[in-house]
């Protein structure tokens, strides 16, 4: 049951360019979305979130866009840095409940110097 889908298992980007990570969801009840970043041998680290009342949220180099009609969100990283190389997980929840999160499979981002 893939309620949250990250269709690209990996992405490679040149340093300084934009990284765009995509996420699709099927459950129209989802109203809160988060992006987590994970380095090897570490737990996921919260990056940025967006609630369904917004279509954009920005935090420094990271911007999340939400298209509710398409049930699609994306994470933009600009400019990308080698330290951004990690696995990025999209997660979603219902009723603004960030506690029970439904996760995508993750996209492994490699930023090349």
């Amino acid at each position, binding site marked *: 049951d893939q309620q949250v889908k990250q269709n690209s298992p990996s992405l490679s980007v040149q340093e300084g360019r934009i990284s765009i990570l995509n996420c699709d969801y099927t459950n129209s009840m989802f109203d809160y979305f988060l992006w*987590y970043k994970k380095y090897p*041998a570490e*737990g*996921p*680290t*919260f990056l940025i979130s967006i609630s369904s009342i917004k279509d954009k949220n920005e935090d420094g180099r990271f911007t999340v866009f939400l298209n509710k009609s398409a049930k699609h969100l994306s994470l933009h990283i600009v400019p990308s840095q080698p330290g951004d190389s990690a696995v990025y997980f999209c997660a979603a929840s219902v009723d603004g409940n*960030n*506690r*029970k999160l439904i996760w995508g499979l993750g996209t492994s981002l490699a930023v090349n110097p």
Partner: protein
Amino acid sequence: EPEVTQTPSHQVTQMGQEVILRCVPISNHLYFYWYRQILGQKVEFLVSFYNNEISEKSEIFDDQFSVERPDGSNFTLKIRSTKLEDSAMYFCASSGLGPLHFGNGTRLTVT
């Protein structure tokens, strides 16, 4: 910055044995969770815990699993009789009103 700490980092056990995975959440957090990730699969919610009781659990969290906050600082996940399919990374997390903060995980290997 406060961290969620998990011990051990790697646990190997034989099928049928009991294991206890330990976590120390961030001290002023009120909500505690366990998630797991089987190799190559998604991170999956197991259970959330608030005010000394389970607030929500998934279908995965059956009778062989239990959680406890025995002393006000530790938060444990017990698997009573481990099965091969319990092999996974187990992540503890805690939160206040904001997003979840995760520990680095315990890799459980059931042989």
